[in-house]
């Protein structure tokens, strides 16, 4: 069996400096059930804020959606006062899921098992036969409704993004996100949005391989030929990555049209991903209009631990990670436009939606890349990956030829996993 089974031993044996100034990540961190269980405790239920949805998904009183934090089922709902609440989706009686729909509208949550009913804040408001039937049964005299609420999580919203936390000690959401990430959210969520729909993708690999993927400007022009060939993203473009001081969150950004195609042809030489013979019969898929005042055309904002906010040309989406175990996760893509989009803009976003999601011409390869790694590391858990591009150090970068953002993720991961939960 695997030599490494204990998370703390694995963290202790993780080298701080890799070969030749590079950075190493032990493969066991991706494959071990013990690590996965500790992540649920120390990350998803630890001092972090997890994304659970967009306010635009639950606009009206009584609107709800069911989702997950890590692998814990939760319900996100809006009460009569307009406040958003997040509760663990588990009846306080015998543990049944109280909400069985993906989404909907309801005056209260009622468990089907024994009809215990909760209001939209998660408070228990009633249960059958509390005082018995004809003198028989009933709850003990000491039974106090207030002690049997659904488990309520801390909730904060920022610019229409809803986050929840199991932690009593986590800092406020804006402090957790930090100035850099907040500015990036401010830019995209600058006016009311409208939901265009969801796409769900099940990927058979560890969730952290996707955390790496979305902090990796090195791969984007090499794996995704569509990106490179049509100049939507090339490592030679103006761009970079910005991290907060704890390296939790990462912004990859770039501006198309800021490199010379003739120069790029030399840089990429005969690389598969740069194919000037590939032309489109219907280029309207790439037609667009600027959404913002700047020239930034790609933003991949990866917020620790479970969401990516993206702008790729005119496609806007959040991608939520839901874990199903060390070897499997779901990616929920929720695409949106702006409430004031006109018909022309609706058509632009609809056509460009071909670029993203599980069938996206520039994003479908990421699921396959995660699985290629996962399949490759199924043994040899005490061996390591190697990252050295850009110097092997964590931090921000003013170019795209780097792995510094991925290393930043791992530095924060090691820090948070090394802390015992309060």
């Amino acid at each position: 069996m695997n030599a490494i089974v204990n998370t703390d031993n694995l963290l202790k044996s993780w080298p701080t400096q890799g070969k030749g100034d590079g950075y190493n990540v032990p493969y066991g961190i991706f494959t071990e059930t013990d690590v996965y269980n500790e992540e649920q405790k120390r990350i998803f239920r630890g001092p972090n804020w997890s994304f659970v949805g967009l306010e635009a998904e639950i606009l009206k009183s009584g609107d709800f959606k069911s989702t997950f934090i890590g692998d814990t089922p939760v319900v996100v709902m809006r009460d009569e006062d307009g406040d958003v609440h997040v509760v663990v989706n588990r009846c306080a009686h015998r543990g049944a899921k109280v909400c069985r729909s993906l989404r909907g509208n309801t005056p209260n949550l009622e468990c089907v098992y024994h009809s215990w009913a909760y209001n939209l804040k998660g408070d228990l408001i009633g249960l059958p036969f509390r005082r018995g039937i004809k003198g028989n049964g009933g709850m003990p005299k000491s039974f106090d409704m207030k002690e049997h609420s659904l488990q309520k999580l801390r909730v904060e919203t920022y610019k229409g993004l809803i986050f929840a936390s199991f932690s009593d000690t986590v800092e406020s959401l804006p402090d957790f996100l930090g100035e850099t990430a907040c500015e990036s959210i401010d830019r995209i969520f600058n006016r009311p949005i409208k939901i265009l729909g969801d796409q769900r993708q099940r990927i058979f690999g560890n969730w952290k391989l996707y955390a790496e993927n979305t902090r990796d400007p090195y791969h984007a022009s090499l794996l995704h030929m569509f990106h490179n060939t049509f100049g939507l993203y090339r490592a030679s473009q103006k761009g970079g990555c910005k991290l907060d001081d704890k390296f939790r969150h990462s912004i990859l950004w770039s501006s198309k049209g800021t490199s010379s195609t003739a120069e790029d042809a030399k840089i990429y030489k005969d690389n598969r991903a740069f194919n000037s013979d590939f032309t489109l019969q219907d280029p309207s898929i790439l037609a667009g209009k600027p959404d913002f005042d700047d020239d930034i055309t790609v933003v991949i904002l990866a917020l620790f631990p479970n969401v990516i906010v993206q702008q790729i040309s005119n496609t806007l989406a959040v991608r939520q990670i839901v874990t199903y175990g060390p070897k499997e996760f779901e990616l929920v893509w929720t695409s949106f436009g702006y409430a004031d989009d006109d018909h022309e803009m609706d058509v632009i976003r609809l056509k460009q939606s071909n670029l993203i999601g599980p069938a996206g011409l520039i994003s479908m390869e990421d699921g396959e890349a995660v699985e290629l790694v996962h399949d490759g590391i199924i043994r040899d858990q005490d061996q390591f990956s190697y990252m050295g591009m850009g110097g092997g150090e964590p931090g921000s970068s003013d170019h795209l030829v780097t792995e510094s953002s991925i290393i930043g993720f791992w530095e924060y991961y090691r820090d948070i996993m090394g802390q015992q939960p309060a």
Partner: protein
Amino acid sequence: MELAEAKLGIESSVFLDICKLQTKYSQVIDTDKLEDWPDLFVDDCLYKIQPRENFDRDLEGSVIVCTSKGMLVDRVVAHRHANIFAEHVYRHVVGMPLIHNTDDGMISTSTSYVVFRTLNDGESVTYSVGRYEDKLVRENGTLKFKERQVIFDTNQIATQMVTPI
């Protein structure tokens, strides 16, 4: 209603033509003749693969949206030359079409499908289950797709989707 059925009864050859087109569609995909796939559509066509959870909420969000035959061709070229994916084959199993009407030369139908996907490890899995909502027209006497809307129940796509449903 009786009148509509009587009309369809008279034109039972229409039913056979619809079945032929459906079978041909499945065959070009399942036998990897993707280059023949766009020719089953008229030039000004719509091909859309949409999660049922969006369709039921009247949301446009789709996995693939092609609004011209050219975009179908581009998908095939990308499949052959651009996209990276695990080797696989599909097997379509398609139900009987329910014919809604045949007015004004436009036939509209609903048809259930199951697509099994087999990777090169030889394991076949249920990859996508759903229905086709089609609009068919004749072009030089041959029945073709004016619209093929794929509305899928299997709302978690395994790994990725590159080959059309």
